[in-house]
């Protein structure tokens, strides 16, 4: 097990180092093969580790690699924790990553920095695995920041485009604000429990003061809002769509952005100590899910719709965490990774066929030209819309059922979001694949053609997973499936009696009705048009004026403040005071400077002579 875990983690790093050292001598194919192979192998080993863990009686294996930092009472080993949660994460992270690596070989063909792209991608997988496999918060933070910096590099991949460069920077800085939350959570835990390894923190969590526990939970939530793009730090994610589409699929949909949810789930024993903290989490999640869904209805860029959809879906996961339904959060996380990666890669295939166009108003009628992209995308669309029997229906249903038990108000918000989700996804589907062909200008009249097999194969695999993913955790085998497997890792949350079977069927029916309602509305509106200001509100298109508000409340005062510092405090106040204080010295020095030989020179000469004498004396004496 120890060797397996180490290899799972190190293979992507090995791929990175190999390409870094030998890349100049390697062709595109070789680079792609090495990078994809390393991650694929890591996935295969994760599967092996999964079965090995199933056979293990303790299901909690710590693998010590080396001691990283050790000062006083602070001991931070580089050590891994293999348990059901981390193995589940590493399975889907490596699996999806391998597929997207494969896809990228086709998508990135002929790009200027092809090699660098795969370098970043492998480094990203390594960081993501560090994040999920770490046995302590500090090492998780290493991965946490590592994925952040890879995201920065990959978003600003087309660095000669100003919008891409700015988007990368924005992503990094928003994430950093969240990171302060994770830092503070660590500081709080360390100063009260004197340890940062997960298992010892959980063992000692009972000794935490309730106020401290709530502060820790809120700090963790801040961290999660940064990384997982939740209110109030959600608006970097849509900008991050400036990155190449495989990056959007891998980092900004399937894996990295769910890290915040993972962190909260991982810390569930601490979450269990603060009901007000969990209520805040649930509220933030439900609000984000709803707000982002409203915004998604009015975006025209296909990737922006998907980006806001991701924000909204992660909102569901956060809601689930707050409601104490940790396995539902992970269930949705895994299914979402399947269908959202599918949708992004599918949209990438569409964009590829239209020479880079992302505006849905210039698409339409593509179904007959993309024989593989179309049916797989159709599956993705039905899955995210919550139509049974696809994975999304089961996973979202699991979340909403738990939300219903937790708070009726948040459940209503969740159902409204479900209607909106079906609506905006159907709008996207109709505008892209149905209706009139509006792309002829882009393709100069030619017909768009399907992508190569390296791109369509991942689509087929992901579509299959989206169809079958619900099988991970069907309601009637709840305890023999994902929930049962993960259960022991979660902190105890007192819960009332679960919903009755009748309630479950009723709630499921509501979900289906919500999905159909959204679908019908979208078809009614968008079958016959490609834009309409009545259904695309400026308020929504401009993201509830969120960026403008931050500009006015934070950026402008900051600029004004630094302006005052540069023009007034620095030269007038400080220099003025100092030169006033040191006035005598200064005047005499300046007076003396006017004498040609200069006070400084004489001083210097005297000092040098003096020290030479001392040194000669010394050498004589010591020698």
């Amino acid at each position, binding site marked *: 097990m120890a060797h397996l875990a180490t290899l799972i983690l190190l293979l992507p790093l090995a791929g990175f180092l190999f390409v870094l050292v030998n890349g100049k001598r390697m062709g595109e194919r070789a680079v792609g093969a090495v990078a994809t192979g390393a991650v694929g192998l890591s996935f295969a080993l994760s599967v092996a580790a999964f079965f090995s863990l199933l056979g293990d009686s303790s299901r909690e294996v710590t693998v010590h690699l*080396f*001691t*990283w*930092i*050790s*000062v*006083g*009472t*602070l001991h931070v080993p580089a050590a891994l924790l293999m348990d059901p949660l981390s193995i589940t994460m590493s399975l889907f992270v490596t699996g999806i990553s391998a597929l997207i690596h494969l896809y990228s070989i086709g998508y990135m063909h002929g790009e200027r920095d092809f090699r660098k792209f795969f370098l970043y991608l492998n480094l990203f997988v390594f960081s993501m695995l560090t994040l999920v496999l770490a046995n302590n918060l*500090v090492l998780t933070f*290493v991965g946490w*920041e*590592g994925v952040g*910096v890879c995201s920065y590099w990959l978003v*600003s991949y087309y*660095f*000669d485009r*100003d919008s891409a*460069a700015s988007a990368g*920077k924005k992503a*990094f*800085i928003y994430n*950093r*604000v969240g*990171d*302060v939350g994770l*830092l*503070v959570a*660590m*500081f*709080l835990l*360390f*100063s009260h429990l004197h340890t940062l390894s997960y298992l010892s923190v959980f063992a000692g969590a009972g000794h935490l003061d309730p106020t401290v526990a709530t502060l820790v939970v809120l700090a963790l939530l801040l961290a999660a809002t940064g990384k997982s793009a939740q209110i109030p730090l959600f608006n970097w994610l849509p900008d991050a769509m400036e990155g190449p589409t495989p990056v959007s699929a891998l980092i900004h949909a399937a894996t990295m952005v769910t890290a915040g949810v993972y962190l909260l789930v991982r810390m569930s024993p601490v979450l269990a100590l603060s009901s007000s903290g969990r209520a805040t989490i649930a509220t933030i999640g439900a609000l984000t899910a709803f707000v982002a869904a409203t915004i998604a209805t009015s975006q025209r860029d296909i990737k922006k719709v998907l980006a806001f959809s991701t924000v909204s879906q992660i909102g569901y996961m956060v809601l689930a965490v707050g409601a104490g339904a940790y396995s539902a959060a992970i269930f949705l996380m895994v299914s979402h990774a399947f269908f959202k990666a599918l949708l992004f890669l599918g949209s990438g295939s569409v964009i590829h066929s239209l020479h880079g166009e992302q505006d849905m108003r210039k698409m339409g009628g593509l179904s007959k030209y993309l024989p593989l992209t179309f049916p797989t995308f159709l599956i993705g669309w039905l899955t995210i819309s919550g139509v049974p029997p696809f994975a999304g229906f089961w996973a979202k249903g699991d979340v909403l059922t738990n939300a219903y038990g937790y708070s009726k108000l948040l459940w209503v918000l969740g159902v409204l979001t479900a209607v909106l989700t079906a609506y905006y996804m159907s709008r996207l589907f109709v505008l892209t694949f149905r209706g009139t062909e509006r792309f002829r200008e882009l393709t100069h009249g030619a017909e768009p053609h399907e992508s190569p097999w390296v791109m369509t194969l991942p689509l087929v695999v992901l579509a299959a997973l989206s169809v079958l993913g619900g099988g991970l955790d069907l309601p009637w085998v709840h305890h023999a499936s994902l929930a049962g497997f993960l259960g022991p890792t979660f902190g105890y949350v007192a819960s009332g009696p679960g919903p009755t079977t009748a309630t479950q069927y009723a709630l499921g029916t509501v979900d289906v009705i919500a999905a159909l309602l959204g679908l019908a509305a979208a078809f009614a509106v968008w079958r016959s048009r490609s834009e309409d200001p009545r259904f695309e509100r400026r308020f929504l298109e401009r993201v509830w004026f969120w960026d403008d508000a931050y500009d006015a409340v934070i950026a402008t005062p900051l*600029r004004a403040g*630094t*302006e005052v*510092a*540069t023009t007034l405090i*620095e*030269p007038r106040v400080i*220099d003025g005071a*100092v030169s006033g*204080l*040191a006035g005598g*010295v*200064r005047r005499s*020095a300046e007076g003396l*400077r006017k004498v040609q030989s200069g006070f*400084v020179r004489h001083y*210097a000469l005297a*000092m*040098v002579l003096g*020290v030479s004498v*001392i*040194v000669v*004396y*010394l*050498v004589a*004496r*010591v020698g």
Partner: protein
Amino acid sequence: MHSSLWLSLLLILPLLGAALAGLVRARANASYRVGVAVASLETVLALVVAVLYRSNVPGAGTFDFMGRWVLAAPFGLAYDVALDGISLLMVVLTALVVLVALFGARDTRREGAFVAWLLLLTSFTMGSFLAHDLLEFFIFFELTLVPAYFIVSQWGAAQRARAALKFFVFTFTGSAFLFVGLLYLGLAHQHQTGGALTFSYSALQSTAMSSSTATWLFVAFAIAFAVKSPIWPLHTWSPLAYAEAPTAGSIELSALLAKLGSYGLLRFAVGLLPLAQVHVRPVMLTLAVIGIVYGSALATTTPDLKRLVAYSSLAQMGFITLGVMTGSKIAMVGAVLLMFNHGVITAGFFLIIGFMERRRGVGVSIRDLSGWQGPAPVLAGLFTVVMMASIGLPGLSGFVSEYLILIGAFATHAWWAVVGALGVVLAALYLLWAYQRVFHGRTSEPIEDATTSERWALVPIVALIVVLGVFPRPVLDRISPSVQQVIEHVAPAGVSK
């Protein structure tokens, strides 16, 4: 205990090198070769000392290589050297930085004199870090001013005269306070013991005094060290001096001379005046976090890359001061590590800015640059590594030190640590902004990528950034016992109040 001869050698080698470089200045390249050879030898010597160092010498605590000779008894003047885990790190930094500066920031104008001043500066800096005697430390501390002044005023940019003078006046004025303070302390000690006048570090540590005397002495010491570091608000000489100095001068000023300030604060102000802690701690911590926020905020607006690094250094020195002053062992170990890491990182920054000036002329404004990543990807990559280390990306060296400071400070002074943690966001803000302006975007100019020798100059820097980020243990293990010794001396007084 090892012989103090090792340390004397560290002191004398660059002195001889300076003399030799001056003598051979007429021959082309000769003084440059002398400089690089001497600096390499000095680096090897420093590393040998680092390997030999033992932190458990009987009777000397964590000090090794001790040796003391009284030179002029009536004045209390002595040559007294010793090395502990803290000064060890500074010694290695001193040798390494001068090597990198000489090799990577070569200045061929009157090269003999330039090399001689740099080596002289190395020797004086070594002396300051090795001194185990307050007066001796002061003399070396003052002596460093001379070569630094000439390097800035003779080889600097357009406003070099003004920059050098401002630097000199600030530092010299600050030192006056230190001088008065140390005389008072020495005389007080003599008065108590009735023996000879001495400034020996271990002797002065046992000086009895009231806490108000200690506080006044601390203030006097701290002014000198605050100017040198710099600590807000005595920093205003530094942006000008860093910007106007030649590249090697900026490196020496920010990577080394600044550390004399924080080293002095830790060793002498904190180490000799434990009774002052209770009174000065809140003030010093507040100045430290103001420095972090203020320096970072100003770094976001300046269009000059060297000034940006200067303001960034103000913020970093704020972190160091925070670590030194909290009284937490973890934070103090972090502060000592950050002294080293900041030295390495900032040397990297100024080297790369120097490379950019070679291509675009002195006084590079961020506003005039764009798109360098296209034609110069290696240069961009090297800058990225240094930048990420400075931002505190885990896995690189800056993170370990910053993290230790903040987590240590949080346990004793939570709010200061939280404000300090905001510096983590701000650092990303100004550095990524600068990176975007310089390296992202487009350019039509043919910019030459990093040359082979430029790459070599950055190899030790990048290597240290990565190695100390992943495997800081050997260094931490050497710092910890010495910091423990300082804490043990300070803590009882701090607690009893």
